[in-house]
């Protein structure tokens, strides 16, 4: 019998849960998670939450420039960090293991499987996402198919059975075959655990030279699209490498302060956000 039976879990009322998965590391799971959160929160006043379950390499705090933040314990549970979004009624809430470390920049988490699984259970059970339910909870995952993945699926299954929440996965890949192979393993995992796949995003697909506008396919092109044809999955679109997006993330503090705006509106100025809005349409996230 679970000790949490009967206890109110704030995650129960979430409308949509989107898992961002990829068998391969460094293909842009966190980057896609961030863009998904920014894009979704810019439309329809969505309430968006981001949960980072990459315990040994949490990058989400860096993406949202929240590296120094700490999680507080409220009466109803752990309080996520709120990213301030100017002039909007919506909210963007973030939770990551990085917020629990003393020195999130340097400290490493050297934990074995059972402890990591317990941590994930706690992230699902104990986080208080707010009085009004979230429209979207986007979950960023570590690479591979191991303890974290098994744990998150087990915990979400329980929710799904009780509350009928819409749980879907988005797969991220880069165009190389090396990456596509690992991603196939991830799709195999989704099939085994019966997780619906919303579609595949091909990230780092081409790089536009800022000097001559010539597009080079650094990591090849079309691998993700071919994969979708082969396995009969929806293909959501190509995302090019955009040095401007990297710059925005790395220096968001200065850029946001300079323009007196916020991360979401700065993101919407970039050309990559248009590519991403096509993906949102294609995937029918709305």
């Amino acid at each position: 019998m679970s000790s949490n039976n009967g206890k109110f879990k704030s995650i129960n009322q979430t409308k949509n849960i989107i898992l961002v998965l990829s068998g391969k590391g460094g293909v842009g799971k966190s980057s896609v998670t961030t863009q998904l959160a920014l894009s979704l929160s810019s439309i329809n006043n969505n309430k968006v939450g981001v949960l980072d379950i990459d315990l040994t390499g949490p990058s989400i705090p860096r993406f949202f420039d929240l590296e120094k933040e700490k999680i507080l314990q409220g009466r109803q549970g752990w309080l996520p960090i709120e990213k301030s979004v100017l002039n909007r009624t919506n909210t963007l809430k973030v939770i990551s293991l990085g917020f629990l470390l003393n020195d999130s920049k340097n400290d490493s988490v050297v934990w074995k499987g059972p402890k990591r699984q317990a941590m994930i259970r706690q992230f699902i059970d104990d986080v208080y996402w707010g009085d009004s339910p979230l429209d979207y909870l986007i979950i960023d995952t570590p690479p591979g198919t191991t303890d974290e993945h098994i744990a998150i699926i087990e915990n979400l299954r329980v929710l799904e059975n009780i509350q009928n929440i819409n749980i879907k996965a988005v797969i991220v890949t880069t165009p190389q075959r090396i990456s596509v192979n690992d991603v196939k393993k991830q799709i195999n995992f989704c099939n085994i655990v019966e997780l619906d796949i919303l579609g595949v995003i091909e990230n780092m697909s081409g790089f536009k030279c800022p000097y001559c506008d010539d597009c080079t396919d650094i990591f090849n092109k079309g691998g993700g699209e071919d994969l979708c044809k082969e396995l009969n999955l929806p293909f959501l679109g190509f995302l090019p490498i955009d040095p401007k997006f990297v710059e925005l993330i790395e220096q968001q503090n200065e850029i946001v302060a300079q323009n007196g705006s916020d991360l979401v509106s700065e993101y919407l100025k970039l050309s990559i956000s248009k590519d991403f809005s096509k993906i949102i349409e294609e995937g029918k996230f709305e």
Partner: protein
Amino acid sequence: MTTQAVDNAITEEPLHCPGPESEDAGAGDACNSCNYQQFCSSNNNLPKVEDPDIQLIKDNLSCIKNKILVLSGKGGVGKSTFSTLLSFLLSSDPELNIGLLDLDITGPSIPKMIGTMSDKSNATLHMTNNGLIPNYVQDNLATISIQYLLPSLDEAIIWKSAKKETMIKKFLKDTLWNDLDYLIIDTPPGTSDEHILINKLLNKTQSVTGAVLVTTPQEVSLNDVRKEINFCQKVGIRILGLVENMAGFVCGSCNKKTDIFKATTGGGEALCNEFNIPYWGKVPLDPRLGICCDQGESFIDLYPESEATLKLVEIVEKLMDQCEI
């Protein structure tokens, strides 16, 4: 009464369970509410017996001169690519015998990159009475990967840590490496079970020669590499050097260089200064390298004049300086 008994039987471990093999087993705060407290604490009083596998691993690895870990906290920065190129470069000297061990259980890429998957019938391992025979790419380059044991490239391994540990132990204790000069160990991203285990095993046998860290220049990646450095310091692995991969891309049509992954915080060099680690230099991003990896060809043999190859040759020299031959 019976339902009560069933309830007890399936109770999960408490959230902060220290684990039965931990020194605090049965004594932690969380243990007070756990049904197995008695079991764990009684177990703790038994004399600690050293894992019998340790001696076996020690015997098996005793003929390897240098054992080098390729680490990075971040995924996709080029650990496997670097391990592959390193093995190819080292094995270009016919006098040296090289082994390449792929410890990434859930995402093995070595076989594909090194070209052993192109002939499917050949991509297997053979078990003999004496042990596991690795897959030979060349006469002096042997590889081991979980991929060779899987029926197809798409098959996923969904294992919890205990099962992965058994596999890693098997690779370490049962592989017939023969006499190797270098064993390159490619690892998965992060600081998880695989890393804890391989360090525990190798430290108790004879410690690894050291670790090579791979990173890309942006802060998001450096952040994770800092954690890896922290891990190495915690467990006492010597860091031989740091390689900054994917640093700069030269546009094929206008020949101008762009830093795709911008080093806004000083990149790998600043990180090395911060932690006092030898900085081994930048390897530029070359689209041809990715294609070679996809097709399992040796980039070094095909493009010996490219900037990336020249840089890698320098790095290998620095590595060899720190190893015994």
